[in-house]
C-alpha cells in the first residue's frame, strides 16, 4: 500500500483554478483561443490525473488519502482545516466531474463561437470545476461548505450569463436564494455536528458517530429529538436546495436561462448531484436515523414522480430535460432513503453521462435551429443531424432504463431497492418510482418524436436574419430559419459521441462491483439491518442475466407502454395531443402551472417579504423610533426655547438639555450609591 501524492491532488484541484484566473483576468490579452486553451488545458490535466488517482486506488494498490493541507482556524479544541479525503467515492466523483467538464469545455468552443462573453464563459466553467473538486475532495465540513457555496456562486453567475435578459437575472437571483434556504439548514446541520461530535473533520466525526445514539437535542423544555435525526434532516435540507428536491426544486427549471453547456455540466451532471454525494459521504451519520432516511425517501419519491409529470407538458426542449433531471434526482434521493447509497451514487454516475449527453444533444439541436428551443417548431431533424440523432437516442434509452443501457442498471436497482425496503414510507416510494418509469418514457419519447421524427414544422427562408442567444429577446419569427438545419461541428459532436459511449456501456461493465460488490469499501457505510443492496446482490448473477431478466419486469413494460403511447400520439395521430389536452384540461392546467408552487412562493416570500420590509421600515424605524427621537428633540427644543427666553438666549439648546440630564443622573447615581 502506498500513499497518493499530495502534489498530484493539489494539481487536480488547482489546475482548473489557474485556467479560470488566466481566462478571467487576462481574457482580453490572451484572446479567445488563449482563453479556451488555458482552461481546457487546466481541466484536461485535472481529468487525466483524476483517472490516474482512480486507477491507483482501484488497481494500483494505493491507500485512501486523508490529510489536512493547512489549518483554516484553530480555537481551543475546535479546528477547521483545508484538506483532501480521497477514497473510491471521491475519486469516482473527481473522474465524473472532470470528464464531463472537459467534454463541456470542448463543446463550448462550438456552442459559444459567436458569443461576446466567450472568455468569461470559459473562466466561469473552469472556476466551477475548481469549486466542485474542492467539494468532492474535501475531508471536512467547512471545506465542503466552501465548495458547496462556490459552485452556487458560479451557478449564479452562469444562470445570469445573459445578464441583459430580465428572465436570466430573475432566475439567477431565485436560484441563489432558494439554495440559500437549503444552506440555512446545512449550516445548522454543521453546527449540530460540531455540537454533538465536537469536530468538523469527516473521519473524526464518522468515528464518533455511534456516540450519537441515545443523544437528544431539547427542542423545548420537555420535548427532545434524536441527535442523529436532527443532524440528518438539517444536512439534508442543504441537499434539498442544491439537489433541487421538492419543495426547493423551483430554481432548477429556471436555471435553463443559462447557456446550454452549463445546463449540462452544472444543472444536470455535477453540481445538482452534490447533495446526493454529500448524503452518501455522510452515510455513517445518516445510517443512525431511520426517521431522517424516511424523510429523505418521501421527499425524493415525491419529486421523482411529480416533477417528471410536469416534464410531459413542456414545449421547450431544454425544460423537458430539466424536469427530467429533477425527476432523476428524486430517484437518487429515494435510493439514499432506502440506505442504498451505492445505488444513489451509481445512478449519479450513469446519469451524469447520459444527462450531459441529452443536454448537449439538445444544445446541438438548438444550434441547428438557430437558437429556437420550442419543440413545436422542430420535427424531422433526424435526417439533418444524424450524429446528434443517434447519440440522443442512446441517451434517451439510457434515461428510460432500457436493459443493457447504463441507466437500466442504476435505475432498475433503485426501483427494486425501494420495493425491497421495509422502512416507513417505502411503499409510497416504490409506487412513485415505478410510475415514474412510465412518466420518464412519456416525456423522453415525446421529446424525441417532436424533435427528430414526424413532419418538419419549421420553414427555411434564406434571407432571414440570424438570431442568437445573447440577443434572444428580439427573436426572429418562431419556426422560420435563415438556412436549413445542419449537423453541428466536430467540437460539438465529438463530446456527444464520447458521452454516448459510457451512457451505453458503463453500466454493463461496472454494475457487478460498484452496485453489488464492496467497491466503495469503507467510503459508504450501511448497517447490516437494512442493507437492501446486499440482499439484492445475493440474487445477482452478472450484468447479462440482470439485463435479460429486466425484459420481464414491470419497469421495462411501462417504458414500452410509454413508447407506444407517444409514438401513436405524436407520429401517427398528431391531432390526438390536442384532443387529450382538452379532455384532461384540469390535469393539463395543473401540470402546465407546475402545481402553482412558483406562484405561491412568489406571493408569500417575494412580495410578502417586500411588504413586510416596508411595514418594518415605515412603522418601526420611521414612525416609532424616529418618531420618538424627533418628538423628544422637538420637545427639548420647545423647553429650551422657553429656557432661552429666561436666560441669555445663547445656550445651545441640545447641549443644555444634556448638561441638565448629566447633573440629574450624576445626582441619581450619588443618591443610589449612598442609600
Amino acid at each position, binding site marked *: 500500500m502506498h500513499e497518493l501524492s499530495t502534489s498530484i491532488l493539489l494539481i487536480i484541484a488547482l489546475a482548473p483554478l489557474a485556467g479560470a484566473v488566466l481566462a478571467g483576468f487576462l481574457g482580453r490579452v490572451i484572446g479567445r483561443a488563449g482563453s479556451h486553451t488555458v482552461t481546457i488545458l487546466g481541466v484536461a490535466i485535472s481529468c487525466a490525473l483524476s483517472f490516474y488517482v482512480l486507477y491507483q486506488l482501484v488497481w494500483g494498490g494505493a491507500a485512501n488519502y486523508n490529510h489536512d493541507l*493547512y489549518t483554516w482556524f484553530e480555537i481551543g479544541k475546535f479546528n477547521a482545516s483545508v484538506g483532501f479525503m480521497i477514497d473510491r467515492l471521491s475519486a469516482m466523483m473527481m473522474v465524473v466531474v472532470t470528464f464531463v467538464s472537459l467534454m463541456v469545455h470542448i463543446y463550448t468552443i462550438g456552442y459559444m463561437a459567436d458569443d461576446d462573453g466567450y472568455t468569461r464563459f470559459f473562466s466561469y466553467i473552469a472556476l466551477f470545476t475548481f469549486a466542485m473538486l474542492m467539494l468532492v475532495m474535501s475531508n471536512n465540513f467547512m471545506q465542503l461548505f466552501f465548495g458547496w457555496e462556490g459552485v452556487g456562486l458560479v451557478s449564479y453567475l452562469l444562470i445570469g450569463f445573459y*445578464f*441583459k435578459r430580465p428572465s436570466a*437575472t430573475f432566475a439567477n437571483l431565485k436560484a441563489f*436564494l432558494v439554495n440559500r434556504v437549503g444552506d440555512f439548514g446545512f449550516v445548522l446541520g454543521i453546527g449540530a455536528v460540531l455540537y454533538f461530535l465536537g469536530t468538523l473533520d469527516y473521519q473524526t466525526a464518522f468515528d464518533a458517530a455511534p456516540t450519537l445514539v441515545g443523544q437528544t437535542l431539547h427542542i423545548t423544555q420537555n420535548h427532545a429529538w434524536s441527535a442523529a435525526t436532527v443532524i440528518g434532516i438539517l444536512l439534508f435540507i442543504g441537499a434539498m436546495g442544491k439537489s433541487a428536491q421538492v419543495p426547493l426544486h423551483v430554481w432548477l427549471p429556471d436555471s435553463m436561462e443559462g447557456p446550454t453547456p452549463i445546463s449540462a455540466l452544472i444543472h444536470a451532471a455535477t453540481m445538482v448531484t452534490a447533495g446526493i454525494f454529500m448524503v452518501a459521504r455522510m452515510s455513517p451519520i445518516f445510517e443512525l436515523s431511520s426517521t431522517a432516511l424516511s424523510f429523505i425517501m418521501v421527499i425524493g419519491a415525491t419529486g421523482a414522480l411529480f416533477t417528471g409529470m410536469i416534464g410531459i407538458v413542456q414545449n421547450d426542449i431544454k425544460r423537458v430535460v430539466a424536469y427530467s433531471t429533477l425527476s432523476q434526482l428524486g430517484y437518487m434521493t429515494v435510493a439514499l432513503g432506502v440506505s442504498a447509497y451505492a445505488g444513489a451514487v451509481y445512478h449519479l454516475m450513469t446519469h451524469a453521462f447520459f444527462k450531459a449527453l441529452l443536454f448537449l444533444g439538445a444544445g446541438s439541436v438548438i444550434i441547428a435551429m438557430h437558437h429556437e428551443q420550442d419543440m413545436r417548431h422542430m420535427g424531422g431533424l433526424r435526417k439533418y443531424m444524424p450524429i446528434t440523432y443517434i447519440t440522443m437516442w442512446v441517451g434517451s434509452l439510457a434515461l428510460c432504463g432500457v436493459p443493457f443501457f447504463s441507466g437500466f442498471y442504476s435505475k432498475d436497482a433503485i426501483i427494486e431497492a425501494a420495493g425491497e425496503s421495509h422502512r416507513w414510507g417505502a411503499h409510497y416510494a416504490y409506487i412513485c418510482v415505478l410510475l415514474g418509469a412510465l412518466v420518464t418514457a412519456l416525456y423522453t419519447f415525446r421529446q424525441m418524436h417532436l424533435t427528430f421524427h414526424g413532419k418538419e414544422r419549421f420553414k427555411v427562408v434564406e434571407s432571414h436574419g440570424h438570431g442568437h442567444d445573447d440577443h434572444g429577446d428580439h427573436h426572429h419569427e418562431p419556426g422560420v430559419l435563415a438556412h436549413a438545419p445542419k449537423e453541428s461541428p466536430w467540437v460539438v459532436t465529438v463530446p456527444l459521441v464520447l458521452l454516448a459511449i459510457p451512457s451505453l456501456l458503463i453500466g454493463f461493465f461496472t454494475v457487478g462491483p460498484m452496485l453489488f460488490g464492496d467497491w466503495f469499501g469503507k467510503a459508504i457505510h450501511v448497517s447490516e439491518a437494512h442493507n437492501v443492496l446486499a440482499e439484492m446482490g445475493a440474487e445477482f448473477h452478472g450484468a447479462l442475466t440482470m439485463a435479460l431478466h429486466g425484459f420481464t419486469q414491470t419497469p421495462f413494460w411501462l417504458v414500452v407502454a410509454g413508447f407506444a403511447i407517444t409514438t401513436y400520439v405524436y407520429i401517427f395521430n398528431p391531432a390526438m395531443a390536442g384532443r387529450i389536452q382538452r379532455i384532461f384540461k384540469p390535469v393539463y392546467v395543473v401540470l402546465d402551472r407546475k402545481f402553482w408552487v412558483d406562484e405561491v412562493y412568489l406571493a408569500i416570500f417575494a412580495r410578502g417579504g417586500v411588504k413586510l420590509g416596508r411595514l418594518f421600515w415605515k412603522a418601526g424605524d420611521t414612525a416609532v423610533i424616529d418618531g420618538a427621537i424627533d418628538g423628544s428633540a422637538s420637545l427639548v427644543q420647545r423647553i429650551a426655547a422657553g429656557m432661552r427666553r429666561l436666560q441669555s438666549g445663547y445656550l445651545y439648546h*441640545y447641549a443644555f438639555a444634556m448638561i441638565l440630564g448629566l447633573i440629574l443622573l450624576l445626582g441619581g447615581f450619588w443618591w443610589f450609591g449612598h442609600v
Partner: protein
Amino acid sequence: MSNHLLSLLIWLPMAGAVPVLIAGARGSASRWIALAVAIATFAASLLLLPAYHTDGAVMQLVESTPWIASLHVNYALGVDGISVALILLTSFVGVLVIVGAWDVIKDNKPHQYMAAMLVLEGLLIGVFCATDALLFYVFFEAMLIPMFILIGIWGGPRRVYATLKFFIYTFLGSIFMLIGLIYLYHKAGTFDMATLAALPLTMKEQSWLFFAFLIAFAIKIPMVPVHTWLPDAHVEAPTGGSVVLAAVMLKVGGYGFLRFSLPIVPDASAHYAWLVIVLSLIPVVYIGYVALVQEDMKKLVAYSSIAHMGFVTLGIFIAFMLVRDLGNVDAANLGVQGAMVQMMSHGFVSGAMFSCIGVMYDRLHTRQIKDYGGLVNVMPWFAFFMVFFAMANCGLPGTSGFVGEFMVILASFSANPWIALIAAFTLIIGAAYTLWLVKRVVWGEVTNDKVAAMKDINGREAFVLTAFAVVVLAIGVWPQPLVHLMGGSINHLVQQLAISKI
C-alpha cells in the same frame, strides 16, 4: 522607538494634519503630504506585528505618564491582540480613504478634508490603545468632532439633520458611560482599566454600570432600537466619511463591550446576556427586511451593517451562556473570535461596499437604486468588484464575510439551537437584499443615457477596491493568522468571564 510605538501611531497622523492644513487648498501638496502621513502610519502599525507577542494575557508595549496628577489620571497606553487587529484595520482604511478622496474632494477644501481624516485616524487609534478609562473616554468623545466636521461640511443636502442626530445620539450614549466611569473612579480611586477590571462590585452596582455601558456602546455599534442615526449619517456623509464610519467607528462599540462590559461588570453582563442576545437577533430578521426595501443604496448598506454588527454582539454575549451555564470555554472562544473576525471583516467589506457606492455616486451624483441599471455593460471591472463585495457581504465562503458569521452560528448552536436558527436566517435575507441590489444596479440592460455614459473605474479606484478585495479574500481563504493574533487575548478574556466579582 518601540517603547513609544503606540504614541507614535496616535500622534503621527494628528501631527501630520498640521502640514496638510498649512499646504492649503491649492495644488496637490496637501494630498501628497496626507498620503505620505497615512502610509507612514500604516507602515508603523505593521511594526506592531513583530513587536507583539501573541500569548496576549497582559497589555504590551505599555506607556504610562501622569496626565492629570490630582485625579490620578494617566496617559496610559497598551495593546493586546484585539487592539492590534483593530489598529491595523484603522491604519489600512486610513490610507484607502485618502486615496479614495484624491480627486473627489478636489474643489472643496481638500486640505481640510484630508486633515480631518488624519485627526480622526489618530483618535481612533487612540481609542484602541488607551488603558486608562478617562483617556479612552477623551478619545471616544473627541473622534466625534472630526466626523461631525466631515459630514457637516462635505455631506449631502440633509447633512445638518444627520450630523445633529449622529452627534446627539452618540454623545447621549457616552454621557452615560462617563457617569459610570465617574462612579467607578469614586470606588477605585483610579481610571486604570486593569484595576477597574479587578474591582469587586455588587450585583446592583454592576447592573447600573452595565446599562450605562450598554447604552453607550449599543448606540455606537449600533443596536436596535438605537440605530436610526446610522442610516441618516451614512446617507449624508461623503464617501470617505462613510467608509471610516462603517469600517472603524462602529467597531469602537464592539471594542467597548469587550473592554468595559465584560471585564468590569461580568456578573451583570452574564445576567443580562439574554437581553443583548435578543437585541442582537432582532436586527438579523427585522433589519434584514428593512434593508430589503431601501431605495437608497447607502441606506441599504447601512442597514446591512446593523445586521452584521448584530453578529458581533451575539458572539460576545453568547460566550456568557457558554461559559457560565454550560462550561464550554472552547465554544465561548469560538463565539468571541467569531465576533472579532466579523468586526474586522465588516470593516473591510462595508468599507469596500461604500467605496463602490462612492464610485457610482461620483459619476452620477445619485444614490437611488432606480437611477442605475445595467452597469456591467459599461463598467465591467467595476461590476466585478461590486459582485465580489456583494458576495462577501452575504457571507460567501472564501471571503472574510463568511468566517465570522460561521463561527458565531456554530458557537450559538452549542448554546441554544434556536438562537443559531434565527442567526442563520441571515444567510437568506442577507443574500436577498444584497443580490437584489446587485440585480437592479449591475445586471440588466443599460437603463438610461446617463448610465450609458459612465466610465469604468480608473487606476486609483481600482487600487482602492483591489486593496480591499485582497484582504477580504485573504481572510476568507486563511483566517488562522488573524485568529492566532487575537487568540491569546480572547482566551484570556473568556477565562475571566467565568470568574464572579461578587
